[in-house]
């Protein structure tokens, strides 16, 4: 393997140039590593902005009564927190990871469509500037929840909703371009010998995720376009008074929305499937069934959307279909969890920071899965629906699910990205602060939900006071420990100890065969695929 590395390292010297200098490097770059870095920093910025909004919400909910904000602003905070975290933090972070890792994992020199790659990133800062600017407009920004149900988001929306619609269109365009690029790269740019069933799981999960994105982003674009027409051009898609149907909005939204939540978790499955074998020093258990499980989950995601709408008044047959279909998801998801545990079983485990986050992912994501199964039971869902039980459920799959996987990925690959090791002691401290913070924040929300607290309310009855106070304390612990994460990352980049090429004793995969930090151009000549570096 080392000969290959040396061969192309030497090759770089005379045929390619390094990055341009200054701002131009970042504006005009078509390099997958630069664009990956841009995506990751953008996503972290959005994560902090969305986090501040969450803390405003939690500060207001610390005690009963209205303390800091008015209900109108509270609704803008919950709405924008959701939109920013979903579209601005989690999705771009996964695209950033795909940019960095997919070419390096399949032995490709870059993404298939580098200029498209540049465009799909640079759309995002404009999209989010537009969306966040609505908060400063007369009448305020989006205040109708991240699910923007009509007619609250059409007839009754603030004037700024038109900017919101435009921003969603831009985000959708960016996602579609990014997905096309990822599919084109994976299907066309694999090194000779890297067959589909030899690809790392992270590449597989992203391939499937990209297809989901291409399938559902246009549906979202359709939904917001219909809103635009209802608001400005006199149509009545969602206006009952004009013969339209507000419930149709929810069907369209969730036909996008349910695959969307898997878009935010499938790459996480991929990351965890990379990390656990490394630190268990044992190959991934059940590679084939992992691939089929991800594909099954992706397929099922298209036929379960109405489980978000059990209370809208569907006929009995519809309710039963969506209940049964939703429960089916537990089977492939269970297979994945069993496979991860079997990978750990009789391994030789060590618990560096990425592994800690990955193990926490398995445990806490499974808890989120259990509450998901409970929510699938339609008669019980009537009691859970739109309460804090749901808030607890989806935060368990998104925060210690998606976000923990992104943090784990950062610790796992940052030595490869910048050639320096993070501080293991600080990394572990960050893990424990995050782990405690996340559980103190979200576990009590199961209880306040079961006790009957509706979601999206700025003030609450007195019996919910204790759990809300606890939840707010946890939120501040979690929030500030992510600022600490920023410090750890900056410290690593500036003054971390030099990393080896392999970085982790048990790491396998093409990305570990190149030097640390990864050179600006890698695999300009395709590497030889060996059994040691690819699934066999």
């Amino acid at each position, binding site marked *: 393997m080392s000969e290959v590395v040396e061969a192309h390292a030497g090759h770089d010297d005379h045929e390619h140039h390094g990055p341009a200098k200054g701002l131009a490097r970042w504006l005009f770059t078509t390099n997958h590593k630069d664009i990956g870095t841009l995506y990751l920093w953008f996503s972290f910025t959005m994560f902090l902005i969305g986090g501040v909004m969450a803390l405003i919400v939690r500060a207001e909910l610390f005690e009963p009564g209205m303390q800091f904000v008015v209900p109108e602003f509270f609704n803008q905070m919950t709405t924008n927190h959701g939109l920013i975290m979903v579209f601005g933090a989690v999705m771009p972070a996964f695209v950033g990871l795909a940019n960095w890792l997919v070419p390096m994992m399949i032995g490709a020199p870059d993404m298939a469509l580098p200029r498209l790659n540049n465009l799909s990133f640079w759309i995002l800062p404009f999209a989010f500037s537009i969306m966040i600017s609505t908060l400063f407009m007369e009448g305020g920004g989006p205040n109708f929840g991240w699910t923007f149900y009509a007619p609250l988001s059409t007839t009754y929306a603030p004037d700024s909703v038109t900017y919101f619609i435009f921003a969603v269109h831009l985000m959708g365009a960016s996602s579609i371009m990014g997905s096309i690029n990822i599919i084109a790269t994976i299907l066309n740019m694999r090194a000779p010998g890297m067959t589909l069933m030899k690809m790392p799981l992270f590449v597989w999960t992203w391939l499937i995720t990209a297809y989901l994105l291409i399938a559902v982003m246009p549906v979202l674009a359709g939904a917001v376009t219909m809103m635009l027409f209802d608001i400005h051009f006199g149509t009545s898609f969602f206006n009952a008074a004009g013969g339209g149907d507000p419930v149709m909005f929810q069907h369209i939204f969730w036909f996008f929305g349910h695959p969307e939540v898997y878009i935010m978790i499938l790459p996480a499955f991929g990351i965890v499937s990379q990390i656990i074998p490394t630190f268990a020093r044992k190959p991934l258990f059940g590679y084939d069934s992992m691939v089929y499980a991800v594909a099954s989950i992706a397929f099922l995601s298209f036929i379960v959307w109405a489980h978000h709408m059990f209370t*809208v008044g569907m006929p009995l047959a519809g309710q039963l279909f969506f209940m049964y279909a939703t429960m089916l998801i537990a089977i492939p998801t269970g297979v994945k969890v069993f496979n991860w545990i079997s990978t750990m079983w009789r391994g030789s485990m060590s618990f560096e920071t990425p592994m800690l986050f990955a193990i926490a992912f398995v445990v806490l994501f499974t808890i989120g899965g259990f509450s998901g199964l409970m929510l699938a039971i339609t008669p019980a869902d009537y009691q859970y629906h739109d309460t804090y039980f749901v808030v607890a459920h989806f935060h368990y799959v998104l925060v210690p699910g998606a976000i923990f996987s992104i943090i784990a990925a950062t610790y796992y690959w940052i030595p490869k990205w910048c050639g320096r090791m993070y501080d293991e002691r600080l990394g572990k401290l960050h893990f424990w602060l995050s782990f405690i913070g996340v559980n103190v924040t979200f576990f009590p929300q199961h209880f306040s939900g079961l006790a009957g607290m509706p979601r999206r309310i700025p003030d609450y009855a007195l019996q919910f006071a204790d759990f809300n106070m606890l939840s707010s304390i946890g939120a501040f612990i979690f929030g500030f420990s992510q600022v600490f994460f920023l410090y750890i990352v900056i410290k690593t980049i500036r003054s971390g100890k030099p990393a080896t090429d392999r970085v982790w004793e048990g790491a396998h995969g093409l990305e570990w065969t190149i030097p640390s930090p990864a050179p600006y151009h890698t695999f300009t000549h395709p590497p030889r695929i060996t059994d040691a570096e690819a699934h066999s």
Partner: protein
Amino acid sequence: MNKHCTGIRRLRTAAGVMSMLASGLVAADELNMRVGVTDISRQVYDLHMLILWICVVIGAVVFGAMFWSIIHHRRSAGYQAAHFHENTRLEIAWTIVPTLILIAMCIPATRVLVAMYDTGGEDMTVEVRGYQWKWQYKYLDEDFDRTFSFFSTLTTPIEERHNLSAKGEHYLLEVDEPLRIPVNKKVRFLVTSEDVIHAWWVPDFGIKRDAVPGMLNELWAIVPEPGVYRGQCTELCGKDHGFMPVVVEVMPQADFDAWYASKLVAEQERQQLESMVFTHEELMTQGEAVYTKFCASCHQPNGQGVPPVFPSLVGSKVATGPRDDHIRLVLNGVTGTSMQAFSGQLSKAELAAVVHFERHSWGNNTDDLTQPVDVANAAASN
């Protein structure tokens, strides 16, 4: 003596443990779903507990295996890694066993759901209509003269919400007039909305349904125990989503009949008011009551609103301009804004009073009186 002391100490310890257990039980009550009072809510609770225990058992097995492995299969404990990476039999087993568990869960779930959808054979029907941000309850009867409706709005004073006074026991869960239904009767609820989507939920009955404009959703309940049951709107419906509770009072049949009769009489009196003429003082008193209930959440108790979304009425063009324009605006609302049409919500006497109140409060001082007949005329010349 010594022995005696030990005995007492033991007793104390035992009592301490008992009280801890007792407080634990109380806490457990707040930790879990409410059992509720109806047959359906009990079935839902049982279903919830069944799934919860299944999840707890699966979780204990799965996490147990994982943590056992984490403790024993550590490199720091010198454990050497095995190299297996598949086991077909095991993989088939952990696909089939969960499938069987899921089927076992589907059966009771389906049974309860089918029972919930049995909406026929009702003894009475109430229409539940969501408004931004209050509920309207309309008692339907084939005899139109036995039909009446009223609004149910939050009564928690603004001082309590702003922490200026101590919060009462039913903070945010109290209304001026609850929905009243008789005990042990099958009551059918037709749930709909006037503006955006709301959701009507009474946890103790185990029923929740969205109130969707243009749609009628059905729910039903047979409540075996008299009492006051409290819930909330559960679908984000705008600014005051958190301030539109659902309160249902379940009454013994005789009490309910007496109340129903009194409501019918009150309805007749209300209609008679339409032809009366009031003094300035009467209009102001009545107008303030209507304003507080219907207008103050947007235009604020001091009339200053929350511009630009909710305009101020202090010295405004509408509240100091031509009276009939003011009446017509309140009657018809303003399309495309939160300003609702109140012609269907308030009687002419109430409309007259509130318009008069707005024209003579917070420094507004027009020299007119607004009577029910003026509202009728303005509506006619609409």
